[in-house]
């Protein structure tokens, strides 16, 4: 099977791109895939910290692209997950150090030379050069948003930009949804988000206080938490969906109950029947 490269992007910062990248990458690797997570946030890297690999960095993405090292030398193998690798970003350079074309070549090399099953590129926030680099050469895009109007707005902008770059079917991950808040009608719910963004929903990750702990310890939560509820379970289910398994998405995003909710809207016409007057 040919490998597949994904970009994890959002537009807005702080919605959990890095957490999603780290956990989906780890979950996919735990299922036996050869996976590489790539930090494309040159100058503001932190995927290495979240993965707990910051002390092992010798070479980085820019070194590979500039030919200062071989690709293999820059890949850092994870200590706990057998087939999981990190390609860190350079911290001392900036986004201009590489070009989208170079990223395209790199993605091809990752899939062909290193034979990765999955490459997940963690995109920087914003829509500038860093974003352009991150989406170059990937096969699919995963949009991360939180139930906040500002995050949804930015996600919408990103979807538009992806379409302009001829990536027409990005998939949506709603992060940090608080079911309690939804029940009390205090937040934008998942239906509102899907209604506006109108792209396929890949999964809902519930708000989970343990994420902070796992981030600070540098240990993705899917490695430490075996529960099927909570964020770890959600990440594992999303990983299975990425592999093509048909795993139901419960409307609340927590357990296995519920119907398979797959919203895909064509032309806005399948919305609730407009009133005829």
């Amino acid at each position, binding site marked *: 099977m040919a490998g597949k490269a994904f970009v994890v992007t959002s537009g807005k910062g702080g919605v959990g791109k890095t957490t999603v990248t780290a956990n989906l990458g780890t979950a996919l690797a735990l299922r036996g895939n050869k996976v590489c997570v790539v930090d494309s946030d040159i100058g503001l890297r932190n995927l290495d910290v979240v993965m707990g690999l910051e002390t092992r960095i010798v070479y980085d993405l820019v070194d590979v692209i500039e030919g200062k090292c071989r690709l293999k030398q820059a890949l850092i193998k994870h200590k706990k997950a057998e087939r999981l690798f990190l390609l860190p970003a350079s911290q001392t350079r900036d986004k201009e150090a590489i070009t989208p074309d170079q990223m395209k070549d790199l993605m091809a090399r990752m899939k062909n030379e290193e034979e990765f099953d999955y490459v997940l590129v963690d995109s920087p926030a914003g829509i500038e050069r860093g974003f352009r680099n991150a989406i170059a050469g990937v096969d699919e895009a995963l949009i991360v948003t939180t139930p906040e109007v500002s995050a949804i*707005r930015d996600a919408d902008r990103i979807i538009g930009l992806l379409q302009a770059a001829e990536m027409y079917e990005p998939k949506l991950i709603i992060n940090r949804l608080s079911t309690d808040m939804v029940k009390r009608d205090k937040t934008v719910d998942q239906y509102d988000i899907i209604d506006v963004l109108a792209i396929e929903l890949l999964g809902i990750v519930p708000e989970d206080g343990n994420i902070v702990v796992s981030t600070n310890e540098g240990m993705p939560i899917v490695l430490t938490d075996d529960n099927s509820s909570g964020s770890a379970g959600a990440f594992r289910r999303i990983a299975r969906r990425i592999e093509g398994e048909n795993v139901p998405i419960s409307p609340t995003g927590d357990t296995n109950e519920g119907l398979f909710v797959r919203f895909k809207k064509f*032309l*806005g016409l399948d919305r609730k029947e*407009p*009133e005829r*007057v």
Partner: protein
Amino acid sequence: MARRSPAAVEIKGFGNDVNIILNADAAFSAIEAQLLKKLKNSDKFLAGVEVILDTGERVLNTDECGKLKEIITGKFGLVVSNVRCRSEESRTAVEEIGWNFEHRDLTEFEAKEKRKALVRKPPDEKENDTVLIKRTFRSGQKELHRANVVIVGDVNPGAEVVATGDVVVMGALRGVAHAGADGDDSAVIIALDLSPIQLRISEYIGRPPDLKLKTRNIPEIARVEDGSIVIEKLR
């Protein structure tokens, strides 16, 4: 806007537009000479570009207009999309030459918005045409049409649709729509779900009340009535 430059001709870029600004007091011969000189220095990047001729307070006659056209279009191949004048007296001369006359004392920002609405039209679009767009407008996307616009899809927050005619959204209008952008007060905006951030019709701007009492998914129509935008159920 302060424009106290002694130069007879100024060439300035506002956003994507290039403006050729004529000094109101300079002799026409000076304008001719300087225009020729300035364009010659920059012909490499100006050729084929759409420009706006801003004559300010200056009154142009047919003869002068012809001379300017000969230089701007004839010699350098620029396309004059609009002539912006503060004086009505130039209108006949400008229109005789075949240029678009735009008369209004606008602030720079308004003028820019206005130009956007007027200038960026697809080449074969005619007034009174209706354009059918089958897609959703996402945040940051903007389209301008010199026609009526029917959108089969949504207009999301942060997106903008500008039309010289009516705007009909067969979906949810959550962003900004501007109908009758040329100054047509009779233009209307219709949407199956009208929950916009802002509506504009001609010169009028309306925004929803800060308190959200909206019943959703009822087709509604917005029009200008007695100098303000009113929204009612579509029937």
